[in-house]
Each structure stands twice: as C-alpha cells, then as structure tokens.
C-alpha cells in the first residue's frame, strides 16, 4: 500500500462537537490559523482591508490636498509620516486612499472572471465535442495575446475607468479559470454521483452547478486568491502606464509613475507605493499557499 498508513489506521470520524458545525466560516478561519503562511497572509490582507475602510478616519490629510509648506522637506517627518510627493500631498494618506480602488477592482474582477470562466469550463468539460473545441480555442486565442498590450488596446478604445478595468480583467482572466474548471470537470463528470444524478433525471445545468462545481471549489478558491494578487500587480502596471484610474485620485501605480523620475533624489516617493503593492500581493499569495495546504490536508 503506497498511501501513508495514517488514513488506514484512523477510520476518520471527528469528534461529535465538530460535526455540529456551529459557525462554518469561523471554523474555517480558525483552521487557517494553523498554517503559518496562511495566518501571515490573512493578517496582511485584513490589515489592508481595515486601513482602506478606515481611511477617512485615520488618514491625517485629504488625499489630494497640497501642503506647500512641506515641499521644502518632502522626506518623512512628524507632520508627514511617509513624507509627501512632488506636489506636497501626504503620501500616507494617499496610500491609504489608494488601497480602496485596488481592493474593490481586484477582487471584483476575479469574481467576474471566476463566474465567466467557471461557466465556460463547465460547459466545455461537461459537453465535450465541438462545444469544448470552440470554447478551448477561443480561450487559447485570448491567452495568446501579450496581456499588457491587450489591455492597452482595449482600454485605449473604451477609455479608462474603474468599471472598464474590471471588465477587461474579467475578460482576460476568465480563460485561465475556464481551463482549470474544464480540467476538473472532465474528471468529475465521470464520478458515480453524476451518473446517479442522470439516473434521476437531473438537468445538465443542475449537474454542472450543483454536482460538479462545488467539488471543484478547492483549487478554484486557491486560484482566485492568487489571481487577486496578480490583479493588484496589473492594476499597478496600468496605473504606471498611465491608463489606470484617471487622476487626481490616488492610485498606487500612478503614484509610482509620477515620482519615479525623482528616484535618485527622493526615493521614498516611489518606494512607499511600491511597498504597498508588493505587501498586498504577498498577502494574497500567502493566503493562497495556506489555502492549498488546507486543501491538501482534507
């Protein structure tokens, strides 16, 4: 027997208390805390969410207010904890406010991509034949474009707004999710419970959404978490390329773009927004690693 013998030795039946499942979500969060990467990830992501939510309360300055007096000393000081940018705007306040669009756009785009991608993957994997061929090839075509160039082309045509960025990210990420879900559907559709569902006359839609999709959720959630992190990077890149959120509202990528020319003199102006982006990305990645660990263990 090649499997570790623990599985054999312990006919798994957890203590009665856990079967009652009083607060499923709370239990899951508690389970996450058993994994170090996951707990660090949760702390980072939740910290950013809290900062973004509380920005109006804790930001010491309005994000777009210029403090001309501070222009003489833009470096971090008691008045401006992270210093100011080249226009005298408080960096700390701008980073806090800048977290808001990122934390809305990135997850929203992932949810959109997951919905669209799951649907495509389920339909292609479940029906197979020409339907699968059409969906797979369409996904391949989208995936074959260099993404940044694709974003630039689309955004140049439809204009740049938060909603448009969500739309573009959804369209370009959906094929990746579709591939994952399709692969899992190909396997899951052969399970005996799917056969049992067919034998009691369930519709194809029911089988896809109720019998198959819930069992694909493990890898799907892990991937969504990773993809949220990637979306943060892309939103930053778009801002840096000048096709992100329109100014003057703070946008981490845009903040780097405006100030990287002064890197040699005032490196903090670009470094702090960069640190914000990377910490959030690392947070999502660690969360994904932790979720995968949990998935492997169950």
């Amino acid at each position: 027997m090649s499997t570790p013998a623990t599985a054999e030795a312990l006919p798994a039946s957890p203590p009665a208390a856990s079967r009652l499942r009083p607060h499923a979500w709370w239990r899951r969060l508690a389970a996450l805390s058993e994994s170090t990467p996951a707990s660090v990830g949760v702390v980072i992501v939740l910290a950013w969410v809290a900062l973004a939510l509380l920005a109006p309360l804790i930001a010491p300055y309005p994000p777009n207010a210029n403090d001309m007096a501070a222009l003489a000393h833009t470096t971090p000081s008691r008045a401006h904890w992270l210093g100011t940018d080249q226009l005298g705007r408080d960096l700390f306040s701008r980073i806090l406010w800048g977290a808001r669009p990122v934390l809305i756009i990135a997850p929203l785009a992932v949810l959109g991509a997951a919905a669209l991608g799951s649907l495509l993957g389920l339909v292609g994997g479940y029906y197979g034949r020409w339907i699968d061929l059409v969906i797979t090839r369409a996904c391949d075509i989208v995936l074959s474009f260099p993404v940044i160039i694709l974003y630039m082309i689309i955004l140049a045509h439809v204009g740049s707004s938060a909603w448009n960025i969500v739309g573009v990210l959804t369209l370009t990420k959906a094929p990746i999710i579709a591939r994952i879900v399709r692969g899992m559907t190909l396997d899951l559709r052969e399970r005996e419970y799917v056969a049992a569902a067919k034998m009691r006359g369930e519709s194809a839609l029911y089988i896809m959404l109720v019998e198959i999709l819930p069992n694909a959720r493990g890898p799907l959630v892990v991937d969504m978490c990773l993809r949220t992190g990637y979306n943060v990077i892309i939103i930053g890149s778009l801002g840096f390329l000048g096709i992100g959120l329109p100014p003057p509202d703070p946008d981490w990528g845009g903040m780097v773009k405006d100030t990287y020319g002064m890197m040699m003199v005032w490196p903090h102006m670009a470094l702090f927004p960069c640190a914000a982006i990377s910490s959030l990305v690392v947070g999502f990645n660690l969360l994904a690693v932790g979720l995968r660990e949990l998935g492997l263990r169950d």
Partner: protein
Amino acid sequence: MTDAPLLDVQNLRVAYATRAGEVPVIPGLSLRLDAGEAFGLVGESGCGKSTVALSIVRYLGRAGRITGGRLLFEGRDLATLDAASLRAIRGRRIAMVYQDPMASLNPVMTVGRQLMEGPMIHAGASVSTARARALAMLQEVKLADPEAVMERYPHQLSGGQQQRIVIAMALIAGPALLIMDEPTTGLDVTVEAAVLDLVRELRSRHRSAILFISHNLGSVVRVCDRVGVMYRGELVEEGSVRQIFTNPRHPYTRGLLDCLPTLGRDKRQAPLVPIAGQVEPARVRPPGCGFAARCAHVETGRCTTGPIPAAEVQSEPGHRVACVRADELVRWTRRSGAAAVPAAGGAREPMIAIHHLTKVYESGRRLRFGASRASVRAVVDVDLAAARGQTLAIVGESGCGKSTLAKVLSGFEVATAGGVTVDGVEVGALPVDARSPALKRKLQMVFQNPDSTLNPSHTVGYAIGRALRRLQDRAPGDLAAGVARLLEVVKLPPGTAARRPRHLSGGEKQRAAIARALAGDPDVIVADEPVSSLDVSVQAVIINLLNEIQAARGATLVFISHDLAVVRYLADTVAVMYLGTVAEVGSVERVFAAPYHPYTEALLSAVPVPNPDHAVARILLEGSVPRAAEVPRGCPFATRCPRRLGAVCDDTPPPVQQLAADHRIACHIPGEELRRLQTALVEPSVARR
C-alpha cells in the same frame, strides 16, 4: 529448528501523529517467524496489518513512529538500527511486494533493467551476470518468453505478469524474509490463483520466510503455514492454518469466518452473520479487550477491565488466543445449511429481459485510409432474463463485458443491436436522458465505488431527499420524513442525514447509496460490484441488506460481480460471461454443480476457499484474456480452454446446449461428456455432523 527465530517482534508499539495528538495504532504486538515459514496476517482494513509490515522495514513515513518494543531480525534490532545498516538489509535480506504492481514498477525503465538493478547494486554483479540472474528469475516466475519480457516496459504487461515481475524482483537477491502486502488483491480470480500457486512453489524452493498480509482468508489458507488474526492493532489469535480455520477460538475470528460467503452456501440455506457494529477509531481504546464492544460473548468486568493476555489453547500447541472466555465458548462449526432447496417459482413473466444484446464500441481513430475502423465487441448476442423478485447475477473476470451490460441497462450506453425490455417496455436504445420519469423510477442503480457514489459536497440527507423529489415528486418541505424512512430501511441512524460522506465509513456510504436508489421504489435495481471494495464483515451487511430489501419489495436485482462466492450466496439465476458472451447461464444450483462450462470450471477451481480441508483439483488457465479485437472466430474461450477439442473450437461458434429447463451452456463438448469429465468443485452443502 531450535535456534532463534528469523524475525522476533517483541511487544511492538507504533503510534501515528495526528492533529488530535499521537494515536497508538499498535498497542503492543508480538509475533515470531521462523526461517522458511509462511505466516499470514489477516484482518479487516484499519486493523494495522500494513503498519506492522512497514514497521519491520522501518518505512512508516513521517507520521508514524515506533514507540516501543523490539524488532529482532537475524539477531539485530531493526527498531534501533541506523540508516546505513537498514539499507543493507532492505532489499537484500528483507524484500517487499506491494498490492499495486504498476506502482511498484518504474514506468520508464524496461523490466529487465529493473530486475538487473538488484544484483548490480546489492551484490555488485556485472551486467552479464545480472542479466543471466534476471532471466533465470523470470523463468522461475513462469513468464513465457523471458528474453522478450526483459525488453518490455511495465505498461506492456498485464496485471498478473506485472505482479510476477515484482515477485521476481523481490526474490532475486535471495531474501531471508519476503513481506507480501495484499499481493493479489487487484487481480482477477484466475490470475490470483496462479500467482498464489507460484508463491507456494517459490517458497518451497527458495526457503524464504514469508509474511503474507491479506484480507482474503482463502488466499491465506493457500499460502501459509501459520496465521495471525489482527484486530485494532492487536494479534487476537494465532496458530496453524488448520487450528485457526477449523477451531477458531476468538469471537472475532469466528465472526470473520461466519460473515464470509463460501461457494457451498446460499441465502436460503445459511444466512451470513455479519459482525455487529464497526471498527472503532484507534483513539478511543478501551482498557480491556478491543473487540468487547462488538462481541456477542462479552462479559462486563472480565472482558472490559484489564489487558487481555494471549494464552495457549489447551492441547493445541502454538495456538494462542487473546480472549478470557476462549475456553468457555462452544466449539465453532462451519456453517452450512440443509440440502439445497430449489428456488421457488417456475416460469414467470420476466421483469427485465435482455435479448440478443450486442454492444460494439467503434474506435475513435481511423487506422488507415480505406480501412474500416477498429471496433471492440464488448457484449455479443446476450440473452438473459429475470423475473420479478429474482436476482440475476452476472459474473466474470474484468473485461468480460459485465459492466458494459450494466451500462446498457441503465442507459449510459445504448445497444448496437438487440434490446432490453423492462416490464415489457423496450429500453435498449434509450439513453438515460431520453428515458421517461416512470422508467427512471422503475430502474435504479447501485454503484461500485463507495468513495465516488455520494457527492462529497452534499449531505446524505440532501442526496436522498433530492432523489425523492425527482423520482417521487415530493414537495421540498415534505422530504425529511421520507429521508428518515429510507435511512431506517438501510439501517442507518437518522442523524446520518445531516452528515457528509467523508464522515462515513465505506459500508455506511454504500448503504446511503442504496437508500438513494430506493427513493423511487424501483422495480429493478442494477448493482455493479456493490460490495467489491468493502471489508468482509461490511460486505456481509450490505449483501444481507440487498437481500432483505429485495424480499420486502419484490424488486428484481441485477447483481454484477466478479466474486463467485457472493454470487453463489445471493443469486437465483447466474450468467457466467467471458469476452462479451454468455458461457453458461442457469439457476444458481445448476451453474454451481457439474457439468460446468469449462470456463466456469476454471473460475470455480480458482476461488480461494478458507477451509484447509477443501482440496480441489486446480485448473490453471494458460495465457491471458485475448484483447477484444483478437477474439477467435469460434469459441471466445478457445485460446485458453483446458478442454479444447481442436480446430472446431477455433473456427465454429459453440452451440448453445440446453442441459435442463433452466440451464444452458455454450460449448462444443456435449453435456454428458462434461458431466463424465468433471468432478464437483464446490464443497457439499449438507452439514457434516
């Protein structure tokens, strides 16, 4: 021999680290194995058999840890040996054969190279010597054309051939101890019989001791001298094969033997007696006997307070049993019923009838321009019927077409020719999506794999409730009572409704799946190997349950199985299939009595019987099942038939002989001739008093 034993396990204790802390799975186990001896370790899954084997080679993985005791092998304690010395012993002095040969062989190396590795690494042999050794070894494990086999990759060999290679690899270094962990579990019964005979023969030649682990009591009888029965990590009884199988002392051993269907009994004569309850988790170990909670002879106080020492049975040297009441229990007798009672009822309207059913799979790719597509004839011209309330069993080895037949019945495949009628309605050409709700209700299915039969994301209550809603048009608010009633029918506690499959044991999952199939109150239940992946005691529960449900509801059961003993027990009518055709069909009493079709005869002689007094002439089949594309024109069994007449078998399809009103075989040999040639293979069903 009077010197020290080859392997002396003294009070071995093993624990696994789990999230809930360290769980002792082997609380203290002692066993001795002399040089050249074959010791069988039996017990149900989860009883720690494999853990013992892995402890001996110190291969427990990260979670497992030996917490105490000694593992003396050739005088050295394996439990404390350092890694370098262990490496010198593993493979050279102790070799292992695992269950799945495909997982033991490297798929990207020819088997010849893999065989040569052993002598080259362990004995420093040159390439030519190693090659010669490998060839000799392949001859010893009776592989035809060893030169050619040397150059093959594992995937080019059949399961039986692969397992022979693994055995050759294990024996090539001449180990003093060979550990075999369920070596024949995944194999067909005729292949299993051949491998077991091979092990027996090699044993007498190589003088290696064998630790033979199996859940199959029958195969242990074939191979071993002594047997140990394990339950929850403890050796509850040990003794010679004869002692254990003719005079079992421990209630658990008796329970195992009582719940095992054998070829001589059926449901009308001697019902199976399952062991009550189920194996409790290792975490909650009671102070006394581990089996106390399930034992019919438990005596509170004596059995449940202190550890139970193993004591020798009076006047039976070497027979040790860990039961305080062993001497008080009456002597065990092999259960067997009165003389066979013929099945009631004569010719009735068939509930399900299969007529001239043929299913051909067209291969997807075109071989050459102009050439016709390769086709596989999975089921060829099959004619079967079962009346209301009857059980039709379809038995055969893998690849015989029995599962394809089940798929056509349930609508997952459609017939290429011929048809199937259910209660007079033709369904053979109806895919499952095109079947009417009434028809879906009428025919339901129980599947093979307990781990995949229930959706892990849904509770048992949802699965059954959904079936009630779809098949009986119950309103969503009205389901709970129906679910509770069905759970009661399959003897699951009502609380099961709220649980998910991962919290259930294999037997419980299969019971829930049966409840789901019963939701529409079907007239026909198609069960495709429903017990083949369950432990014997659980298997007995499910078989009895199917039997009861069928009797209570008058449903027709189409039972597909590779296990002849289960079929003998459960069926009214039996069809033996080989390569898509029905070789023999008839009432269970007739099929399991001479004259047999030569294939039935070979199958029956291959079944391992857990009775040391039951000696039958073995009929070993030559070669392997031909691929479906290479089936001979005449009798499909002609290539392997031990009673082949000659060219007529190869060229002319065999005539169907009606030997009795309810018995026909497809064979060129006349029935009278077969009767003269064959002797009874099944143990007599009349009790010996």
